[in-house]
């Protein structure tokens, strides 16, 4: 056996995960704007429609958004728009 030290090259991304804490959850939705993001997977929209109804009944402002396709990442512009226009966002998967 060789007495030489062995060296391997790291095949990974060589990054450390950054833990981002959740932002504080609001105690109430009163006066807030809720964004509902349809990820374009079938039937998710049925769930969101119902949420829309329930939230609107309580006088909460609801805004609707839609991704191009569920298997694709949401476009950065869309995420930016939701962040700017809403206080809370819900995305749904219901198939």
């Amino acid at each position, binding site marked *: *056996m060789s007495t*030489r*030290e*062995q*060296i*391997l090259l*790291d*095949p990974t*991304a060589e990054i450390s995960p950054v833990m981002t804490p959740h932002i504080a959850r609001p105690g109430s939705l009163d006066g807030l704007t809720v964004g509902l993001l349809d990820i374009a997977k079938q039937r998710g929209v049925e769930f969101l429609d119902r949420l829309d109804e329930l939230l609107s009944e309580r006088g909460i402002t609801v805004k609707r958004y839609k991704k191009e396709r569920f*298997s694709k990442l949401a476009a950065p512009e869309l995420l930016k728009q939701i962040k700017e226009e809403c206080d809370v966002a819900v995305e749904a998967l219901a198939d």
Partner: protein
Amino acid sequence: MEDIQDGLIAVVKRDCPTCELIAPILGEIAEQCGPVTVYSQDDPAFPEQVAGVIDDRELEHSFHLGIDIVPTLIHVQNGAETARLIGWNRDEWQEFTGLESLGADFPENRPGCGSRTEEPGMQYRLVARFGNSGLAARRIELPPEADLEEICYERGWTDGLPVVPPTEERVLAMLDGTRRAPSEVIGLIPPNLIECTVEKVAINAVMAGCSPDYMPVVLTVIEASLIPEFGLHGILATTNAIAPVVMVNGPIAKQIGMNAKRNVFGQGNRANATIGRSLQLVVRNVGGGLPGEIDRAVFGNPGKYTFGFAEDEEDPHWTTYAEDQGFTRDQSTVTLFPGDGVTPIIDHMSRTPEELCESYVNALLATYNRRQVNEVSVMLVIGGEHQQVFYKAGWSKQDLRDYLDERLVIPVRDIVPGRSGLGGLTEEEKADPDRLIPKFRTGNFNIIRAGGAAGKYSAIISAIGSKTGLRPVTKEIVL
């Protein structure tokens, strides 16, 4: 470069007949010109005529001196090389040493032999040990007794099968398979969208078991996988069973010995087995796409270890898939498409295209669900003996396609609100129960050729698919 002493340096090996021949000459030079530093590459007892020969079996000195031929004679003054001779030439050696009668009774000229530093693979080993490879990846130092294969498991770098440990020497050899710079970024690998360099691809290609001559293919596979329409993020993350499937067209497939014939989707061919695996290891190690984490597959499929093959282009009767995409037969390409498994179509009896198509239509319509038209895509793989049926009848690939397209339809009344339901249909379509809807309305129905020449089979590689994402992509391999 190490510090070198002034005077003469000779590098020799016993295995070289010219070095054997001039051994007495070295003794004579040492006697008349003062000390000669002699490095022996294979036997520290050679040459006997010189005292204090330095053992260079590890080749460290030869590497630093940049020796490619032995014997080499170097003159050093003020710590720097001023002149160098290779091989034996009487006049040159006389002039070099100033000894007018040196080797007077020796042959006038003898070429040298290759230095041991030039043995296959040696350069990579020497750069890794004594040089500066210039590679950027973190170097993980391990004790001599470490079991490298086990280390790769422990660090979570493998797909479950053993990998080839990515030593610097192997990575350097792999990088020699491409002209592209190790530092070149080829794209962002999902899911973590990490910049992936040529070097990281090479490291993972080593682990996958690739040979360096696969590198142009492997790099193109990674690039093709990042074309948005392919949807790599979706493929790696989905609950579906799909894997990325690699198909290679063009001259490179033969050059690297890929299999397009017998057992084409099976085991036994290095290139077929390792190229697709490289992509999966890059996704795992660079992108961070781990099964059970962001990879949410319910079943997965064995193709997620690796799934690669070459299209059978030997028979000129039909266009190849790459030709259908606008490339020529002289161009080498990679096609990537999602696939969740191989379903054979077994038809030993049909002797006409129409009869064969009857089998194809029934098999194709049943893909996933006889009454499903949404998000289903296939590669129909025509096997060797079935190909002959079409060739003999004078059917072109387009003829087959047109014939099948006409029959691969399902009336609206038969489409069940199941997995994908009627959701993808327009109101107008839904209103007419007799309306015929194409089974492959995603547009992802393609015909390719592969497989052994004997046996009346074809096959379906099925997958989920869509018009805008999860569809086949083709990219030319640039050498």
